[in-house]
């Protein structure tokens, strides 16, 4: 087996900003996305959505719709309830039992599927929706957590007798002593709003149930196909081996495409009922109905000594994520992965409530609960600095976990495997020239201009140990750990092809995998074919997919493992043929050569010929063929225990510094400068990682300044087009300067770490802290997002100069 040291010594491509191999196709419109696929006799589905946030469905009359020429089928919740099992809560001790893939009996949010139509073309399908007559009886809505917790609040799930889906509490260390010793306690309620990633490509499902083989074929824009097969099989009662799920390259994932399985189930059922291949392409409006990130609030208390030393923290987290039970609790539980931030906090309690409301469903959007966690923590730190009259940098330096403490285990059991937090901030302060900005801030303030500097440093965890879902649920977890499968083959002509069981979501898997495999076989990345289509018939694990920043860990781990096995096999065949000891062989120029006499060589092509066709020339006992499948799991995942668990398995970190100017008359914010120092361990392709840091940060900036789903008093979502739901565009995105540090992870095969969520996690507090700093003459305290111009204007008016 090729050792890591050897590979790192010989590498030509790992670590290079190699141009992305996938871009040529993408730029020519040849991406080959799910919607590009049309099956023979293709039919189309459209989904009718509830105009109410909470209402009884008194009756549905589909007769007019069925009479429209071209309409083949109309499916309602009543029929669904007879044919399928309800969706269930994974993390909750008790699951709701009445939430079906199409609403039955009552609707629980504005936009919930109420019926689905199959027609010969998509226009007819949408016309038919206008003809379905539904009689609703509106019910009182529960739109906020405060409303949901009232003693006589209307119930979202009557069968539970409460709107609290999960409530649990964890405690680490000696909190009482910590708070008794404290000189100051910063206590605040922080709020997070509803916002969401909105990938350019919406959900697309194309399903065909083949009655001749009793097989379901599905193409879907699904980030977590392993889990979807599991979920769809369970809900529809089709055995997993009868489901073939294919995922072509996806036009942006961001976690949004983790919730598609509900629609895979609906469309598959429609195909089964009609015998036709049925395609559904979600409209933009449908995508804005939900899922979203949940709104919520956290009551946080941070205890400190007068010199700024952090002693302990109490957190009580309320998340409105219980209305789509499948993800209830996840936004809270994942906070364990970064709740200690970069700090040496020894004592902590965490209590959480997952609450059902009539807001739309929730999905594990970029960073999941970690952005809000970092927002709370980095705001608390700034508020503490203000109170203690310390510079926000000093209080951070004072409390950082030191590089020599690595690997560091947090009181809850999370293992920070490597990193240099003080250096990360130090580098960022140098890069932005912090002292200069502080001077400039004073100068400009004298001219009546309000500049602020915001610092946020955060942990960016990746690779979920999925056992964490079950921390609050008794019994053996359905899923634990994290792993992935890769297949590598040398074909009959000596070319190398790789696939993993993850999905391509736009994050450069093809290029990164090709770079790694190229170095292992000493060829160039262009010579490696990477198959980007997930195909369940090629083997997969329960949670195969692309999410949780696991690619750089378990995918790369599986690829390296498979490639090494293939390489060994090639060397064995060459050794037998050349009669040279494998230790004396090297790979060079698509051939295996003797180190001492390079004319003694055999080409890849000839090796492949032996393996596939001249089987009698194989070494004795060697299996024919050159296909290797290898599965890899991160070896550091622990089984979940309430007192000791690791939620995620790698921990990148970063420092964000943001400079803003606030127009105090209108509340409008301009970002003048933005610097990131990002440590994602060893990096395979720095350009790709830099791009993700920037994109992810812009998504965070969107969350702070622009994006918010607003609901009226009846629970109607008012932001159903991009005219109301405002995404930052290139004109809003500042120039973001990214600097790199590399502290390799000892826990992954190549030393890589999470890389795609850090911006979304760490940026919220950077921007918010900068705005509060700019407004310090007005004594403004920021505890709530988003910071729209109007909200800032109100804060300024409410504050006292």
């Amino acid at each position, binding site marked *: 087996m090729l050792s890591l040291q050897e590979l790192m010594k010989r590498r030509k491509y790992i670590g290079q900003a190699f141009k992305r191999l996938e871009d040529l196709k993408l730029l020519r419109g040849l991406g080959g996305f799910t919607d590009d696929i049309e099956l023979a006799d293709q039919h189309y589905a459209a989904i009718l959505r509830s105009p109410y946030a909470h209402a009884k469905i008194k009756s549905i009359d589909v007769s007019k719709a069925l009479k429209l020429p071209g309409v083949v089928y109309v499916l309602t919740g009543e029929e669904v309830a007879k044919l399928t099992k309800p969706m269930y809560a994974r993390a909750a001790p008790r699951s709701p039992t009445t939430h079906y893939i199409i609403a039955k009996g009552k609707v629980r949010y504005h936009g919930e599927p109420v019926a689905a139509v199959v027609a010969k073309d*998509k226009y007819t399908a949408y016309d038919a929706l206008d003809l379905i007559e539904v009689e609703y009886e509106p019910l009182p809505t529960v739109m906020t957590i405060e409303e949901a917790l009232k003693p006589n609040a209307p119930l979202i799930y009557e069968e539970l007798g409460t709107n609290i889906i999960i409530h649990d509490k964890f405690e680490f260390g000696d909190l009482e002593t910590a708070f008794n010793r404290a000189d100051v306690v910063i206590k605040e309620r922080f709020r997070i709003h509803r916002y969401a990633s909105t990938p350019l490509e919406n959900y697309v499902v194309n399903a065909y149930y083949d009655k001749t083989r009793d097989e379901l074929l599905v193409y879907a824009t699904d980030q977590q196909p392993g889990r979807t097969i599991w979920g769809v099989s369970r809900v529809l009662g089709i055995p997993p081996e009868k489901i073939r799920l294919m995922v072509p390259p996806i036009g942006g994932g961001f976690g949004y495409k983790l919730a598609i399985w509900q629609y895979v189930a609906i469309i598959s059922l429609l195909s089964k009922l009609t015998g036709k291949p049925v395609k559904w392409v979600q409209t933009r*409006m449908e995508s804005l109905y939900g899922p979203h990130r949940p709104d919520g609030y956290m009551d946080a208390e941070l205890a400190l000594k007068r010199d700024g030393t952090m002693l302990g923290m109490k957190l009580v987290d309320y998340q409105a994520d219980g209305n789509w039970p499948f993800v209830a609790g996840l936004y809270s539980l994942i906070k364990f992965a970064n709740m200690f931030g970069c700090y040496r906090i020894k004592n902590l309690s965490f209590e959480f409530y997952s609450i059902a409301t009539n807001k739309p469903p929730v999905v594990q959007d970029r960073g999941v609960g970690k952005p809000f966690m970092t927002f709370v923590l980095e705001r608390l730190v700034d508020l503490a600095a203000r109170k203690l009259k310390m510079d926000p940098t000093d209080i951070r330096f004072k409390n950082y976990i030191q590089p020599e403490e690595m690997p560091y285990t947090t009181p809850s059991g999370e293992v920070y495997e490597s990193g240099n937090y003080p250096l990360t901030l130090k580098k960022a302060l140098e890069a932005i020239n912090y002292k200069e900005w502080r001077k400039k801030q004073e100068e400009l303030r004298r001219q009546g201009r309000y500049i602020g500097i915001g610092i946020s440093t955060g942990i960016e965890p990746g690779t979920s140990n999925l056992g964490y879902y079950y921390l609050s649920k008794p019994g053996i977890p359905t899923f634990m750990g994290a792993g992935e499968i890769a297949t590598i083959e040398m074909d009959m002509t000596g070319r190398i092809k790789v696939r993993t069981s993850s999905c391509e979501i736009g994050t450069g898997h093809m290029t990164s995998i090709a770079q790694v495999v190229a170095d292992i076989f000493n060829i160039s990345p262009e010579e490696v074919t990477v198959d980007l289509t997930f195909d369940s018939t090629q083997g997969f694990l329960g949670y195969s997919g692309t999410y949780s920043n696991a690619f750089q860990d378990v995918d790369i781990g599986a690829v390296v493992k498979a490639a090494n096995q293939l390489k060994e096999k090639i060397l064995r065949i060459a050794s037998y043929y050349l009669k040279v000891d494998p230790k004396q062989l090297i790979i060079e120029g698509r051939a295996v050569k003797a180190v001492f006499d390079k004319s003694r060589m055999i080409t890849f092509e000839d090796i492949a010929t032996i393996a596939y066709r001249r089987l009698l020339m194989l070494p004795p006992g060697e299996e024919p063929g050159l296909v290797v499948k290898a599965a890899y799991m991160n070896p550091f995942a622990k089984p979940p225990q309430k007192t000791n668990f690791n939620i995620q398995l790698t921990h990148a970190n970063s420092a964000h510094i943001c400079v803003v100017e606030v127009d105090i*008359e*209108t509340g409008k914010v301009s970002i003048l400068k933005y610097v990131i120092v990002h440590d994602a361990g060893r990096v395979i392709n720095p350009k790709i990682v830099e791009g993700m840091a920037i994109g992810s940060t812009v998504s965070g900036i969107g969350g702070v300044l622009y994006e918010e789903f607003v609901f009226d008093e009846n629970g109607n979502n008012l932001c159903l087009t991009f005219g*109301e739901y*405002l995404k930052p565009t290139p004109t809003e995105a500042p120039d973001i300067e990214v600097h790199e540090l590399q502290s390799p992870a000892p826990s992954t095969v190549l030393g890589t770490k999470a890389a795609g969520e850090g911006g979304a996690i760490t940026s919220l507090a950077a921007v918010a802290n900068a705005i509060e700093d700019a407004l310090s003459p007005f004594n403004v305290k920021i505890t709530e997002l988003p910071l729209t111009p109007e909200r800032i204007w109100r804060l300024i008016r409410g504050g006292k100069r």
Partner: protein
Amino acid sequence: MIPRKFEYYRAKSVKDAIDFLSTHEGAKVIAGGQSLVPLMKLRIVSPTYLVDIGRIEELRYIRVGDKGELRIGALTTHAEIEESELIRERWPVLAETAEKIADVQIRSRGTIGGSLCHADPAADYPPTLIVLGSEVVVRGKEGKRIVPVEDFILGPFTTNIEENEILEEVVIPPYNGKAGFTKFARREGDLAVVNAAALLKADNGKVEDIRVAVGGVGPKPVRLEALEDKVKGGVIEEDKLSSAIDEAVKELEPPTDVHGTSEYRREVTKVVLKRLILDLYRR
């Protein structure tokens, strides 16, 4: 996001379009499609026919008329107005207005005629056209009529054009003095939370004439004549200007929506107007 069924007719001339519109119930003109198509996709509007006037070249021009007035054909795009050297030189405020509309793609398709007929209360052209004293030429079966822009726009998404009429031309008199347009929006290129235009003539610091109009803060763009009267004839002092603006803004009833409450819009209007007028005055 999928429109209802409709038929398509490509008009050969203005007369052809008017004839077709007169004989087909529910038919609607399409120019650049930048406002109409989104409404169709949301099924808010469902025409039976789309009468495409996009190929009628006689409606696409920018030229100066006999009296030195600017004449713009209805099909002229926002991009053409933004880039026209003639307009940049002699009606610069109009180019400055056009360049603030939406994004490059929309400016390349959307037309001035379409913008005026769509009559979004927050559209950008109207305040500018109003302070410049512009008119539109509307043609119907019986011939043409000329309507001041102020009277053409009646309210949100309503104008005084008939279903079988075509807006042919926008006519803008020459101006001297300093004119400016400003816009406050959540993002670059969004529809305005508030926009405003002003035309100011001053001699030695004394205001001889001023015209001010605002958009986005009521059912339709309006001229603020009471404010103009207070400012006219004297020198501008910031304090006095502010209180005059406060008075004028009191009369407005801005809408509340997800981008801002009525109260906030009112406050921003004050800021926008003060900055615009002072900037013109000091320019």
